[in-house]
């Protein structure tokens, strides 16, 4: 974006003289592609550095000559053709979304599923039994002991048990 501002400050002459010399191999070092004025379709760069179509056919050149006269003499198709010479996409085409999100979402689900398969395989084939302190009998004895000891009586487990009615609070 900064580059486009620089060009507008320095003037069109610089584009036609030194840069063209460099582009056509008359400078000292070969000018790389990325240093030459480029075309870009972006909302925040409304007027790109160069026109889209560089080499005009005879028909297009005739049209450019006609453009120099009054524009009301141009038909709609001719105006569209002039636009397409200058620009690649219209704003509508530029702003159109893609279907990339479907691919991304699909990839995410695929890898989530793959991870799940690995976890299931591990649980089935690799891991041993869990400690005996997770049995129903142990857990209920443990919960009773926690309540008897008044563990976390302010907002925790003992605060959720009704000690008078011997049941969980509703």
């Amino acid at each position, binding site marked *: 974006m900064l580059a486009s501002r620089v060009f507008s400050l320095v003037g069109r002459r610089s584009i036609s003289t030194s840069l063209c010399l460099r582009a056509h191999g008359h400078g000292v070092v070969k000018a790389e592609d990325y240093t030459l004025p480029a075309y870009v379709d972006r909302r925040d760069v409304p007027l790109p550095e160069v026109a889209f179509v560089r080499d005009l056919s005879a028909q297009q050149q005739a049209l450019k000559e006609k453009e120099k006269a009054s524009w009301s003499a141009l038909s709609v198709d001719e105006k569209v053709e002039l636009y397409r010479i200058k620009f690649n996409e219209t704003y509508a085409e530029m702003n159109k979304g893609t279907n990339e999100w479907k691919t991304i979402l699909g990839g995410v689900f695929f890898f989530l599923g793959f991870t799940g398969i690995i976890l299931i395989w591990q649980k089935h084939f690799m891991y041993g039994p869990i400690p005996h302190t997770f049995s129903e009998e142990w857990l209920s004895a443990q919960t009773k002991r926690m309540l008897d000891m008044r563990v976390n009586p302010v907002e*925790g487990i003992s605060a959720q048990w009704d000690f008078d009615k011997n049941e969980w609070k509703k």
Partner: protein
Amino acid sequence: MANHSQLGFQDASSPIMEELIQFHDHALMVALAICSLVLYLLTLMLTEKLSSSTVDAQEIELVWTILPAMVLITLALPSLRILYMMDEINEPDLTLKAIGHQWYWTYEYTDFKDLTFDSYMIPTADLPLGHFRLLEVDHRVIVPTGSTVRVIVTADDVLHSWAVPSLGVKTDAIPGRLNQTSFLATRPGVYYGQCSEICGANHSFMPIVVESAPLPNFEHWSSSLSS
């Protein structure tokens, strides 16, 4: 102790822990507000079309410098308040020494008589029904309820850390160094903690159990053990 899927803090059993829980709630709200704002702005920016007409941003730059500074002050003031509160002179009634070994704790009550004992974890296979796996010990640390207790923490071999979450205590046990902390158990009960500094193979198997009992019970226990 915590429930099996507990995310939040255990209920406080000391005044410092109560303060810490309140500060945590405050800080969490601040963090939540900031995250919501950022998420909202992010969505706004990602759904907005790009424009070439922004050149200057002086006002918003001022806002997003002053506002975060104010947020930081909002966080710093309560935090420092609690930090200084922890260091207040509180004239402890009892001094307890906790010495970390690989892989058990030794406790010494030497204020009045020489009471020393080791505290080993009870192995899972030897647990009575309903007891807590990896948390129970053979000899608990008994302290009187409502009395300020000074704990001097050190270690015999490698680094350990003496931590009891519901009392708001965590102090590193460093060989050759005495670290001091203090707590006040506000209610009677049994409070569990675990060694909080990696110390070898059985680091996860050297828990801490503090039992807060009324003063007469504490005196009865202390005299029966040390005689």
